[in-house]
């Protein structure tokens, strides 16, 4: 009688041959892999180029506006920022102006030490945030919008935590992220401003479309959802630079095409020449309407982090507590209620 070895070998061979005949893994696959590897290698050796401007290491920081830079103040109010102690590490949340209607909940920075999470800092959409504590069992759970987000749990093997993580989480409980060196800020959404039209045709889900747009310019976006547009509508990704317009049709599940020069977080690995905008465009709507959510890019806008004042006292973030999801170091002026 046939043995499992034979079945596995035959199944593997026929599948492998069929995949080869079908063309194997495409250029997009390779591009994506190379991009991810490059980013990880860069993260492991962070500190060069723009990253050095943003790296805040063990000192706290605040965001200020660059003279001459258009008015994008990501952490308001300024008075609250000025009281943030300089020896508390301060992480960047995403630029809210980039998010459009995406149902963003929070960004989590997970620092590791000795193969385990040592600190998890949360940044919410409004710029408020702080550290969370692990519960008595060692699970790091953050409650937001009536939902528990388990950001790290005690039963995870140490090799998962060979590097830190930074992830963006959405109100539906999903999220996405990349490895993180424990120092560099993730600034991918800076420079982007997303505009959602005030008039929205029936059947268009601007939250879902905004989130798909985030797959190009941020962390943790989501592929196109079939239900985001009316039946029969056609969706395109549109990337505009000084060379013109590049259009790619999107189908259910598709993310936005990659943009040359931007890494997995939407962060520029080098100055991105000529990039003007990225959009998600819906056509073939009833009455011939067209609907677009457009993110425009301005490379001159970036966060500047500075240490405002030294402050005494060590962080006590890693102290285990039987109380899950309690804030230890809330941002001044931030509400302690997690929505």
């Amino acid at each position: 009688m046939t043995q499992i070895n034979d079945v596995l070998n035959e199944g593997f061979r026929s599948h492998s041959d069929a995949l080869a005949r079908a063309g194997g893994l495409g250029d997009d696959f390779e591009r994506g892999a190379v991009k991810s590897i490059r980013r990880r290698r860069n993260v492991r050796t962070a500190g060069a180029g723009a990253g050095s401007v943003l790296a805040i290491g063990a000192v706290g920081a605040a965001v200020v506006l660059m003279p001459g830079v258009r008015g994008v103040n990501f952490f308001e109010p300024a008075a609250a920022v000025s009281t943030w102690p300089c020896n508390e590490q301060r992480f960047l949340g995403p630029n809210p102006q980039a998010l459009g209607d995406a149902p963003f909940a929070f960004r989590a920075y997970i620092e590791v030490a000795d193969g385990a999470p040592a600190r998890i800092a949360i940044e919410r959409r409004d710029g408020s945030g702080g550290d969370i504590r692990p519960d008595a069992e060692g699970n790091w759970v953050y409650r937001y919008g009536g939902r528990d987000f388990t950001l790290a749990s005690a039963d995870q093997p140490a090799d998962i935590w060979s590097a830190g993580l930074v992830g963006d989480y959405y109100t539906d409980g999903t999220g996405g992220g990349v490895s993180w060196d424990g120092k560099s800020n993730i600034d991918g959404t800076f420079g982007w401003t997303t505009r959602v039209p005030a008039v929205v045709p029936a059947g268009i889900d601007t939250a879902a479309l905004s989130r798909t747009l985030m797959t190009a310019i941020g962390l943790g976006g989501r592929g196109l959802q079939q239900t985001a547009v009316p039946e029969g509508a056609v969706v395109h990704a549109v990337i505009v630079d000084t060379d013109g317009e590049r259009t790619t049709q999107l189908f259910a599940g598709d993310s936005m095409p990659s943009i040359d020069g931007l890494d997995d977080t939407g962060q520029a690995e080098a100055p991105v020449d000529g990039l003007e905008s990225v959009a998600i465009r819906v056509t073939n709507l009833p009455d011939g309407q067209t609907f677009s959510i457009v993110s425009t890019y301005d490379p001159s806008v970036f966060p500047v982090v500075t240490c405002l004042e030294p402050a005494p006292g060590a962080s006590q973030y890693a102290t285990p507590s039987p109380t899950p999801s309690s804030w230890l170091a809330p941002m001044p002026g931030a509400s302690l209620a997690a929505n």
Partner: protein
Amino acid sequence: MAQWQSLVDQLIRERGPQLVAYGAMLVGRDGDAEDLVHDAIVKTFSRRRSIGTVGEAHAYVRKAMPSIVIDRTRSAASRRRALSRSFERPDDGADLDAGVDLRRALRTLAPREQVCVVLRYFDDLTVTQVAAQLGLADGTVKRYLANARTHLAQELGISDNWDDPRERADVVAVHGGKTS
């Protein structure tokens, strides 16, 4: 182009189908398998290590794949990342027909059972080697294999006498270029 980049290029072109087919036995679906291959390639090449040939790269990537699957069973964050990516690609209808019955049958197993079956009966590792690679106890691996045996024999209509005398204790090549 950096050396690692040209090796990634060569690996994907020459060994991509084999890696995806191997991944599909571990996770069941072509799309998930491509994600798994992606993760394994990124994991392998993100570390600055010396990989000289496509054969070595293939061996490293293939060895990383079962561990990534097991990590996902342990890590909520890892599962979330895989889930998040699964939303970013087309539906599962793209699975190729070739060998699909086997993959469907494997998919009915628990993820850890699935991985143990592939390592034991496709890669011909011993129970001890499977346990060592996955960070599990020998007894746990045996239990997974016993469960899988009963289940798959029925699903695939094959013998359930898998405790064949070919239990081998070969040293598994990790660096060799012969892995196909």
